[in-house]
């Protein structure tokens, strides 16, 4: 216990004084949260909040239309919670859209030729994210107009029921927050073994300890514990900032969250350690870990739903561990639901891989040193 306390204390102080490491572990995930939260937190690429104010759009009704359809436009716009702003020309519509004049978000040019109505939707190039959504609105507008002109009543109605399986309503920032926690755990875990076994070995620090009664397991456990403490600190900061800055509501199941945290951390440590065993040179292992993290960030459903990826990429995405870390975290934070069986299965697989790989890596590194 004395030896463990000594090595743990030394590693803890070292970690707290390592500014670069603290930046990546603490500040970097927070920066992610703040930037992505502010950028995407109140919006979704595919939805509008129907309780929000009306969406304004500019519309130019070409003289080829003949007759007055303004009433129709007003009626159908009202039904769809849209507010039309009549423009005098196509150029006016383009200008309004481009410059966002009077809060205009998209534009419509309505014309008619040979009994065919033409709805041309105009969108701002700088608003690429929401183009799909606006196209959908224009399409709805065109359909509603069509029905209104013909005084046609819908035959088949659609009733949409938005189900919520969580105790509290979930926002997109909540989703982002669990993604950020997943990233934080991943970065901490992947780099932990590389630093303590890779860089320490390179600097002959491990070699020096071999000449003392310190055994490998004390060293390993002290390192794991230190990494976990700093990671917990990072997660707490993320949760606090998420709550204070973005009013994220989460109903954390502490037990499930702890399990997810532990198994995910250990798995990532195991993967980081495997990189070290493969590449030996710690800089190469660290670079590989960074590349792996970046790829997982993009493909693990943290910032883009996996369902939006091409099918073949979805298969790849479902092989990435961070996909499951993020899913489990959302579940543990009450932000989405997965079957309990899936939750436990993933955790068991994680811990099984880690319990084999981490001791193996520790033994291998010490063995390498002893030649």
């Amino acid at each position, binding site marked *: 216990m004395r030896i463990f306390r000594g090595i743990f204390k030394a590693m803890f102080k070292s970690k707290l004084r390592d500014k670069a490491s603290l930046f990546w572990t603490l500040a970097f995930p927070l920066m992610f949260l703040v930037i992505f939260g502010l950028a995407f937190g109140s919006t*979704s690429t595919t939805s509008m909040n129907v309780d929000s104010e009306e969406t304004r759009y500019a519309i130019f009704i070409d003289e080829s239309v003949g007759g007055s359809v303004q009433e129709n436009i007003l009626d159908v716009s009202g039904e769809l919670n849209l507010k039309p702003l009549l423009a005098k020309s196509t150029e006016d519509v383009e200008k309004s859209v481009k410059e966002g004049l009077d809060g205009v978000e998209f534009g419509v040019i309505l014309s008619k030729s040979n009994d065919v109505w033409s709805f041309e939707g105009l969108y701002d190039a700088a608003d690429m994210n929401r183009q799909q959504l606006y196209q959908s609105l224009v399409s709805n507008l065109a359909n509603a107009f069509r029905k209104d*002109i013909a005084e*046609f009543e819908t035959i088949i*109605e659609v009733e949409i029921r938005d189900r919520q399986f969580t105790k509290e309503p979930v926002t997109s920032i909540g989703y982002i927050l669990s993604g950020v926690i997943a990233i934080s755990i991943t970065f901490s875990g992947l780099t932990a073994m590389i630093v303590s076994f890779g860089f320490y070995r390179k600097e002959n620090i491990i070699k020096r300890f071999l000449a003392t009664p310190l055994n490998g397991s004390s060293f390993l456990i002290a390192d794991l514990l230190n990494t976990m403490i700093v990671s917990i600190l990072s997660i707490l900061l993320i949760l606090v900032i998420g709550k204070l800055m973005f009013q994220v509501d989460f109903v954390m199941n502490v037990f499930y969250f702890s399990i997810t945290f532990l198994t995910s951390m250990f798995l990532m440590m195991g993967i980081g350690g495997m990189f070290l065993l493969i590449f030996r040179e710690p800089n190469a292992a660290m670079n590989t870990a960074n*590349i792996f993290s970046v790829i997982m960030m993009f493909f693990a459903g943290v910032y883009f739903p996996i*369902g939006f990826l091409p099918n073949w990429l979805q298969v790849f995405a479902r092989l990435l561990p961070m996909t499951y870390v993020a899913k489990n975290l959302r579940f543990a934070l009450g932000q989405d639901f997965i079957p309990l069986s899936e939750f436990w299965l993933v955790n068991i697989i994680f811990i099984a891989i880690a319990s084999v790989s981490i001791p193996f890596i520790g033994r291998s590194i010490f063995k390498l040193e002893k030649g």
Partner: protein
Amino acid sequence: MKSVLLKSFIKSGLRERETLFWVLLFPLILFTIMVLIFSNMGGEDLSFNMVLMDRSGEGMGTTVMDQVLEGISSSTGNKNALFNIREMSDEQKALELLKEQKTDLIVTIPEDFNQQFNKVVFFSKLSRIEAEDRPTVEIDRVAIRDTSKMSGDIMEQIISQVNFEAAKRMGIKLPEVDMTNRVVGQSEEFNYADYFFAGVLVMAFFSTGLFNMGINLTLFKQRKIFKRFSATPLSKAQLMSSAILSNLFFMMIAFGLLLIYAKVFYSVTWNIFRLKSILYMLLTAGLAISFGYFVSAVSKTPNSASGFANVLFFPMQFLGGLYFPVFDLSPVVLWFVYINPITYVAAGMRESMGLMESPLPNALHYVVPLIWICGMLLISLWRFRWDGDA
């Protein structure tokens, strides 16, 4: 003498595996990822999972719905089908599947669907039929899940088209409507690959400037390499210009690799003979280099240079319009967007490539980066210590 020094800097960089990866290879990876993801959103390769609970039995309405569902289902062998449809009768089980993310939405055709359908079809001309008496398709989805939300919206649109088809068959004359879409200020040949090409190019230049140049200059300072050179006839101006040129060399290699890759695999439309964009690229390179110089001027060790460069670059790239438009962000960050020089070079780069008009006044694409370059250079000239001492 200078060319030998320049060659030495270049050789040193080319032998650094990290340089090769982050400066040359990573932009290709990032570009591929971004294009793959964004070009598929709303694209042909989307598919969703649907649970269908058809309680309607036999009837005209069912027939109509069956035809519709056949058209969108993958079970007919249609590889581009939107939905993988699974039929169930147990509502609880279906909701469980929705809860467990095993399906994106549940579509229910209720028992009285055909009755109500017939009523509407045959009797709507006689008297108005209220909405609650009309045949209703019920869609259950989870709004917070983007795929579920999107699939619900798509299904709603499909039903809308079904209505029009049904109306046609009923002999109801509906006006024909033709829908087109146009992006204002964007070239006709625009594609996502072009958008990201410009963004990733700016990222690659800044990676080289901030990290390769910034960290390496700091390293040379710390290891007294510059101090050693100062004991030779080499002037400081020659030394710095060689360092700058070597980084420009890497930027050009990065650009060339990215361009070839993007043209071959993603058909980007960038015209290499467009003088405006070449000049703008040089301006961007100059901005990146001035930032690298600044990082090395204020950092004592390569570690602190790396940390500082990361702190700078992370918000700059994500709030600079490299990967997504930033002008409609919250006012809390919008101020940063407008002082961020990357915002201007990203918009300016796209504009100079003829891809899309910038929402910013044209002069700002040049003035703001130039102001930043001057500012960075002034601070760096004042702070940079050749001998590595504070």
